[in-house]
């Protein structure tokens, strides 16, 4: 615990805060907190790839793998234990990303963006035309059980909320460690200049592959948690427009810190609820305009505002840490 930095402490403190919110906030808002934690993990996955300069327009692929792993485990194997489901989802995403990574790690920039999109659309089209899995309508998920304990009603919702919070914060903390570690540093160097990274004696391909697989794993965990709390999965999870929203969150929130995409997802989800109610046909337009404004005026996202503000108040000692 003593080598925790500011971000990690913030994540530790966030756990009791999230638990308090569950009790204090109205039911519907708690629901959005829970759902945005699942989606936030996918945004986090997009963010760590963005650090390497790689824009994934197909992160919905693993979001969907997670969701469908949860659904199919119950449908075909009769498994509703959330820990078994998580293991299955992680295994599925590891295998899939391990294989796809062999192809994708050779590509950068727009090719990476569009190939991840295309791969995700393969799953989308397969699921959309498979009648056994409900085609485009998807199917319902069961109530989660925990090592033989199957809570129902309020208790069930609360149990899932606690598990979601715990997993999300732990994943975020581990990702934070990863970004500070050797591969995290290499990944940033790849964005700056890949060829020089290789001259220094490291394999850019291997680092990209590792980052891609880690992103896949946390996306599938996010997919499981999201699907279990919603109780329903559809192929729409793998559609590129879903993935586009995760990209949007990262552009808006910035890649400065692991907390940024998590908070960004929640803010966006709440905004969406209001926007869709007030004017359903302009939501995407608002997204597009905000995205353009962010790209032009805040290329490092909203998080950079926070960094600037805290740098001004703490000019000396923390200046280096802020860049983490």
């Amino acid at each position, binding site marked *: 615990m003593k080598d925790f930095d500011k971000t990690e402490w913030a994540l530790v403190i966030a756990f009791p805060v999230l638990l308090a919110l569950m009790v204090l906030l109205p039911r519907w808002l708690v629901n959005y907190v829970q759902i945005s934690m699942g989606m936030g993990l996918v945004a986090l996955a997009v963010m760590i790839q963005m650090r390497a*300069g790689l*824009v994934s*327009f197909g992160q919905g692929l693993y979001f969907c793998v997670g969701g469908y792993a949860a659904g199919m485990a119950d449908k075909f194997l009769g498994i509703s234990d959330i820990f078994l489901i998580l293991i299955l989802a992680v295994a599925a995403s590891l295998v899939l990303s391990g294989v796809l990574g062999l*192809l994708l790690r*050779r*590509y950068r*920039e*727009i*090719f990476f*963006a*569009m*190939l991840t*999109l*295309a*791969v995700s*659309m*393969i799953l989308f*089209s*397969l699921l*959309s*035309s*498979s009648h056994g899995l409900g085609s485009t309508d998807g199917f319902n998920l069961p109530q989660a059980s925990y090592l033989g304990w199957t809570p129902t009603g309020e208790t069930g919702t609360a149990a899932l909320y606690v598990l979601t919070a715990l997993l999300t914060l732990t994943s975020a903390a581990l990702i934070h460690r990863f970004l500070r570690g050797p591969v995290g540093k290499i990944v940033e160097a790849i964005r700056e*200049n890949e*060829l*020089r990274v290789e001259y220094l004696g490291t394999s850019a391909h291997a680092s990209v592959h590792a980052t891609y697989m880690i992103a896949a794993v946390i996306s599938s965990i996010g997919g499981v948690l999201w699907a279990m709390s919603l109780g329903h999965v559809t192929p729409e999870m793998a*559609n*590129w*427009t879903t993935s*586009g929203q995760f*990209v949007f969150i990262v*552009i808006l929130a910035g890649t400065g810190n692991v907390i940024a995409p998590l908070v960004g997802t929640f803010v966006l989800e709440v905004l969406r609820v209001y926007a869709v109610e007030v004017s359903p*046909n*302009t*939501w*995407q*337009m608002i*997204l*597009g*305009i905000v*995205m*353009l404004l962010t*790209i*032009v005026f805040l290329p490092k996202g909203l998080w950079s505002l926070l960094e600037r503000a805290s740098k001004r108040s703490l000019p000396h000692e923390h200046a280096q840490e802020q860049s983490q």
Partner: protein
Amino acid sequence: MFTTVAIILDGFGFAAWLFLSSVGLTLIYGVMRILNISHGGFYALGAYSAAWAIGLYTQTGNTIALTYLIIPVAAIVVGILTGLLVERGLLRFMYGHEEVLMVLVTYAVFLILEDVTKLIWGTESYVAYQPAFWLGTVDVAGIPYTIYKFLIIGIAVAVGAGLYWGLNHTRVGKLLLVVIHDREVSAALGINVTLFFTVTFVIGTTLGALGGALTAPEISVVPGIGAEVIVMAFAVIVIGGMGSIGGAMIGAVIVGFARAMSVHLYPPVEMFSIYLVMAVVLAVRPYGLFALAEGRKI
């Protein structure tokens, strides 16, 4: 025999549609190095405006022939107006940024165009079957085939030939090839690169709108068609090599036939087959069939 003829007919039908929907995308990428995701938005705008205009016109009960003029006119008006607006109003301020950033910018434009379409035409579907219906069908080896499809195949060939001729046999086209080859040197030679960019973008978006407008009589125009077409168009141009017009043509034929074969032999894999072809091509030729290799910059 029956299936073979059907596959060949549908293969060329799909290919023509794919080529018309994607050639604008590859043209803009070739000249401007912008992968224009908003292309799907222009496609949808073209489809909606054509369907809407045809609907209005047929209610007046005037002569049929003019309907066929409405399709290109609607596409050209929409393509030029919105194309100019997007390029002059936004993209020109973003030139010189990384390619991947331009993808995000055009994605934002795509989102905006989606809602513009919904705000103008609402969310209900538009049907403008008349132009396709009036031409009737023709029997090809016992299979009835709509003449409108042949018309689209003809237009696709004409557009492809026109672009080829325009690029290789006119002064402007040759200058454009210079701009594609080296933007800075051509600016130094006194070529107005900015003007070429604007014109290229507008031609590209007009082609996108034309693709949508020509498709409108064959489908029911609903929200979301733009998001579908952009993925398909990308598969087509990436197979041929991004920026190559000949490549887009080959890519369209390959994808068109892959789709026609799966439709007639094993329908559930219809969409899957497109991406499968793309994955196989890219695994062998990472930057498409006709892309030129580029040196890595240190």
